[in-house]
């Protein structure tokens, strides 16, 4: 018998005498609440990320403020804002990306309650490696992309797309459970909340 058939038979055997009547799951926790952009800003800042708010037509200026002078920045296809001097991602290798200082992207969702940004890596957000290897991630979140909480985020995300949930810069608590920001992922996260 194949391992697959053996395991499935084992599962069947294990549950032969079990009471399999369904347990009721209350979904009251999904009650919708209004999204609070102020809370989103506060919570992102709690992770020691830099957050700035601006009008939609100021985004390009704020991106430029966020990038250090002479920083080599990479941008994904489909980014709706111009980033002068940046290189486009045309399939750069990991080593190439390691030589880049910063990446500028949009996002799909912002979660107010947890201060989380979710990328689903479509146009304007780029493939996953792009927002991983460079040390500074400048991420633009439109105020209308902010939802109240985690359940609201799942409701708008597409499971067929890869997603990356970003809550602050990379961090570790592995040494005496003291939190240190800045490990393998971007050590700096700069969030521009627009609109």
């Amino acid at each position: 018998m194949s391992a697959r058939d053996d395991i499935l038979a084992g599962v069947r055997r294990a549950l032969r005498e079990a009471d399999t009547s369904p347990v009721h799951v209350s979904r009251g926790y999904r009650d919708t609440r209004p999204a609070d952009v102020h809370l989103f800003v506060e919570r992102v800042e709690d992770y020691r990320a830099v957050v700035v708010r601006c009008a939609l037509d100021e985004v390009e200026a704020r991106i430029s403020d966020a990038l250090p002078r002479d920083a080599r920045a990479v941008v994904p296809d489909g980014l709706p804002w111009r980033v002068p001097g940046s290189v486009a991602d045309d399939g750069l290798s990991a080593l190439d990306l390691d030589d880049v200082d910063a990446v500028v992207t949009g996002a799909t969702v912002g979660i107010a309650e947890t201060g989380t940004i979710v990328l689903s890596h479509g146009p304007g957000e780029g493939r996953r490696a792009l927002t991983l290897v460079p040390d500074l991630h400048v991420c633009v979140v439109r105020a209308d992309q902010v939802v109240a909480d985690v359940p609201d985020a799942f409701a708008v995300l597409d499971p067929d797309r890869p997603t990356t949930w970003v809550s602050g810069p990379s961090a570790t608590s592995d040494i005496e459970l003291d939190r240190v920001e800045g490990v393998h992922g971007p050590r700096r996260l700069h969030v521009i909340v627009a609109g």
Partner: protein
Amino acid sequence: MSATFVGMPAFPVAARTALADTQLRANLAHATGTIRAKRAKVVAEVDNWEELRLAAAGIKDNTLLHLEEHLVRLEESLTRQGAVVHWARDAAEACTIVADVAKSHGVDEVVKVKSMATGEIELNEALAKEGIAAWETDLAELIVQLGDDLPSHILVPAIHRNRAEIREIFLSHMAAAGRPAPDDLTDEPARLADAARLHLREKFLRAKVGVSGANFAVADSGTLVVVESEGNGRMCLTLPEVLVTVVGIEKIVPTWADLDVFLQLLPRSSTGERMNPYTSTWSGVTPGDGPQEVHVVLLDNGRTRALADDVGRQALRCIRCSACLNVCPVYERTGGHAYGSVYPGPIGAILNPLLKGVGVDAQTDSLPYASSLCGACFEACPVRIDIPSVLVDLRAQVVDSHRGDRFPKAEALAMKATALAFGSGGRLGAAEKASGLVGRLLGGGGRRRLPGGRKLLGRLPGPGAAWTDARDLPTPPAESFRAWWKRTGGRG
């Protein structure tokens, strides 16, 4: 790594060694104290925490009770999304599958995301035998690997090490594994994290094959989820050309939307954060993004055995947050090594016997007794595993597995005798008279009294010595309550 849990002594013996290590106890008390406070703060923020716990337990129970259906759906979804699905009955089969994938690409190294399942099956050791180096990339796992040590915590495997010890390990052992630690390395956590970043970066950038576990596997979409902090997970899941993910068959949730409860419970229970820095989800192969060859190994390795246990089945709800370790008064004092497994603490005390079965080895059989049954674990568990009840049930299984022994243990005889005395009030009264007499004889020579004035017993013989070696014990009173009631009708 040559360190192994194989041949570990039973819990009480291993605990004695750990308890004698004052540095270890200080490290643990500091670390668990810190994380307990962080967890308490972020859990208190959530007004519907109990509702989330109930929902999580319900979702997991419904899934486990129809596991076959969900497994088949997961396989279909993964295959549809371009992943290759493998099934492994046990550790050896799982290790062979991973090794074969690595060998088919001719590599002599893989980069690894921290994963409990691959620790459980001792994948690194198996790959080493095939000449393949498995580089741990989580900071704590790196500390354990470089120190040729064993993990002692689910979330923070190097929780038993303090910053000074970590600096020593980095300075002495990093060079042999790749880029050496900087000579001027201090024990500041930020400097240590930076040393790990530099050491691992070259490995991430060149790796062809990544190996991971998964926190969740979504049956209807074929989505796998890895929850992490440092970005090492993203590196391993994204940069290599090939990704192999080893997933226990209990990690399934039915739908994408069901994740919404777990991603609220896990970070708060685990690291005490509203959300962990990074969570990655992926469904098979995404053209032009990340690994283009994706394998998933569905692992049994005792899970169907646990599933068959009516009381113990709930342990398969576990999401490996380690909240139960952090609140456990036993774990806080003994640390994780005493449990002899990658799964230490209260969850380990039930999961190991459930996965391996009881009545086979004394080490596993000692685990259900490694608890004072204080219940702090159940209270903290985000998926409401009633660990104390499972512990008690497993103790009964351990006892039952020895009922046929030719030479019953002294404990079994004592329990039978006690049960006989407790069989009637009259018999108990007689036993009390006898014990009062014996107690007065044992206590006869002692001059010390308890504060309050009661006389003390001397050193007890046999197993009772385990009590009197560290604690005073009063002599039994001259008159039991029962005798007093009989004499006075309760109006004495």
